[in-house]
């Protein structure tokens, strides 16, 4: 069986290589932290959950099945960790949802429109703006957008991570983009 780069690293980690685990952590740290941070919107919690994720990954690595992609397996563990946290701290996470919307509105009014009211958005600012809107949509949709675009997963891989049917994943992502479009249109952004 041909092993991909991740699987070669895992073989080495299972053989006791600390350096390989460091390499794996370096590779996934940004994506995992980014995903968790955008889900929980609290840096301290995101740091804690990211650490828990890597420790868990290391401890259950012997259970990994080499027939499947490592990233999908890892994202599933990460997803479950975040969902568990969100379920236990629903009220807190919801309060951050409200904060995020008001923060976005503040950001828009301050940074994205000049004194005359004309949009002065550069490409990077527009991209930041779009991702700020992503942060403000309900979690049910946000999580799928993050898995699709932040983690770069395909629809069937997202279905594997979230344990939702592929059809539901697609529909929710379409719905999520409709919500994004409506929110962005309200601000008069992304128009040609």
């Amino acid at each position, binding site marked *: 069986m041909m092993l991909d780069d991740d699987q070669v690293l895992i073989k080495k980690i299972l053989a006791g290589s*600390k350096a390989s685990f460091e390499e794996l952590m370096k590779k996934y740290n*940004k994506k995992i932290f980014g995903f968790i941070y955008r889900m929980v919107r609290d840096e301290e919690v995101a740091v804690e959950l*990211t650490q828990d994720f890597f420790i868990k990954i290391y401890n259950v690595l012997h259970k990994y099945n080499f027939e499947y992609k490592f990233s999908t397996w890892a994202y599933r563990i990460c997803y479950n960790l975040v969902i568990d946290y969100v379920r236990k701290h629903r009220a807190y996470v919801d309060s951050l949802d409200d904060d995020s919307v008001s923060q976005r509105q503040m950001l828009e009014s301050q940074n994205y429109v000049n004194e005359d009211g004309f949009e002065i958005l550069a490409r990077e600012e527009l991209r930041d703006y779009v991702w700020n809107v992503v942060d403000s949509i309900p979690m049910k949709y946000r999580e799928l957008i993050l898995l699709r675009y932040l983690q770069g997963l395909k629809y069937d891989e997202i279905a594997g991570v979230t344990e939702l049917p592929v059809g539901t994943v697609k529909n929710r992502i379409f719905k999520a*983009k409709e919500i994004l479009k409506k929110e*962005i249109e309200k601000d008069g952004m992304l128009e040609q």
Partner: protein
Amino acid sequence: MACLNSETIQEYIDGELTNVENAMVRDHLIVCEKCRMEYDYYERLEKYLAEPVYITPPPAIERNVLNALFPRIPALSSVLSLIAASFILVVTWIYIYFDFANNSIIQALQLTTDKTSNWIASVIQMISAVFSTVYAVFKVINAFVDAVFKINIGVEIIGIFTLLICTAFFYLGSRLVFKKIKGTNA
């Protein structure tokens, strides 16, 4: 053909449609400006989503994970330094506990004198001389603080405080020395 719904437009962008459906949507987009605008909007949105903004993770994450999974065994230099510092503490404690300043133990040793206890008595006398001097210095400090600030700290408190500081310095100093020795041998 009726106007396209947003789902079909998104499927078209994703390349999820069959060849026939693809051709129908393409033809419709040529003739329908409203749907074309909708398509352009989703395409722009797709473009920005496809360039995610990553937040840089704090470096503490990797460090904490590695510390949790691979706890560091204390270096030999730390262990030796700790033993040396503990030795100082124990000697001082014995000195205070047996009240060597009164020479009672020394006298007891000299009463049951033999060649072994003679040299032990000399060592204890030496230590006693050092401690007596230090004790005298503490007394002076205490008297000075009492005279100037009207605060009587007490010789014992000054002694314990100084002892702790000295032990800490001794520990750090010993670590440096041991590290240096280790570095020279390597």
